[in-house]
């Protein structure tokens, strides 16, 4: 007898693996019922961790500054700021770096902590399409603003290049930027989350002793770090491209 009528043909494996977004608290929002989901809770936890860490690092940095000696915390802060400055200045020059470095630092820290939060057993906020779409839309607005501000009428002319027949394609490629950026981040992190939950959900207990740590290192730290870097790199590259050449 085939076991029919249950979800997915009654495969027990997939019913135990839990990577869905759960709806926890119903909220009445202008007459419609919306839910506070797993993503909201995990986002709040991640943001709290980031705030505590940055407050501690700030305190430790100024303390080390006052006493005039170097500690581990102050070295970490200096290295991070130095790397970020080089990263942005290489792409858009000193003038542009001043404007965008704050946003990029915040973006980098938020995405990195979100991606790696899988290690703590949370469901990464970036494995929800809502989060990544918002991040990509912010980037897209920045790109369009830089385009209009620095290219003015050349931007409209650019839509008809190399010849007018390309207009629809140029418009599509303009609007596909946020889609491809958000889907890249979302797909990578969701893929890792699904694989990890399948591993935890379907194997017997002795397979969960130690092997998952290697998987966490790959899916959460390595893959999450690479995707963070790529998202920030693409943001910087696209905006710098619209700003034009710097001296």
């Amino acid at each position, binding site marked *: *007898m085939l076991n029919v009528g249950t979800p997915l043909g009654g495969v027990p494996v997939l019913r135990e693996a839990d990577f*869905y977004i759960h709806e926890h608290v119903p909220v009445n929002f202008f007459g419609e019922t919306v839910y506070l989901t797993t993503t909201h809770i995990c986002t709040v936890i991640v943001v709290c961790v980031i705030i505590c860490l940055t407050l501690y690092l700030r305190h430790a940095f100024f303390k080390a500054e006052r006493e005039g000696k170097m500690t581990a915390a102050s070295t970490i802060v200096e290295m991070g700021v130095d790397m970020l400055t080089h990263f942005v200045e290489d792409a858009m020059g000193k003038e542009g770096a001043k404007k965008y470095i704050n946003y990029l630092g915040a973006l980098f820290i938020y995405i990195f902590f979100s991606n790696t939060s899988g290690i703590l057993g949370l469901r990464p906020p970036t494995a929800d399409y809502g989060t990544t779409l918002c991040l990509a839309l912010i980037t897209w607005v920045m790109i369009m603003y830089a385009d209009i501000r620095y290219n003015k009428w050349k931007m409209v002319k650019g839509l008809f290049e190399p010849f007018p027949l390309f207009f629809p394609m140029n418009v599509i490629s303009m609007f596909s930027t946020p889609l491809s950026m958000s889907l890249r981040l979302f*797909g990578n992190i969701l893929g890792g989350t699904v694989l990890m939950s399948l591993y935890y959900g379907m194997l017997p207990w002795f397979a969960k002793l130690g092997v998952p740590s290697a998987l966490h290192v790959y899916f959460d730290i390595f893959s999450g770090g690479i995707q963070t870097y*790529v998202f920030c*790199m*693409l943001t910087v590259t696209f905006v710098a491209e619209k700003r034009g050449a710097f001296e």
Partner: protein
Amino acid sequence: MNVNFDGNDLIHAFSALGAGIAVCSGIGTGIGQGNAAGLGAQAVGRNPGAKGTIMSTMLLGQAVAETTGLYGLVVALLLMFVKPFDK
């Protein structure tokens, strides 16, 4: 053997099949990323001083090449878990 299919079973079966076919887009991604990594290694061998620049360019290119594969993955996940064709 006594098998009763109701409306959704056939849809689930073909959704699973479609998900399997959709992740075949990973083939192209694999070829593209491997190509980029190989050429990156060649470039480092020729010019070891520029390792940092080569690495970042290679990772950027690989990330862009990965997009098509991820579209396939997203379609497969939609077919398997969101089940858009259910009655």
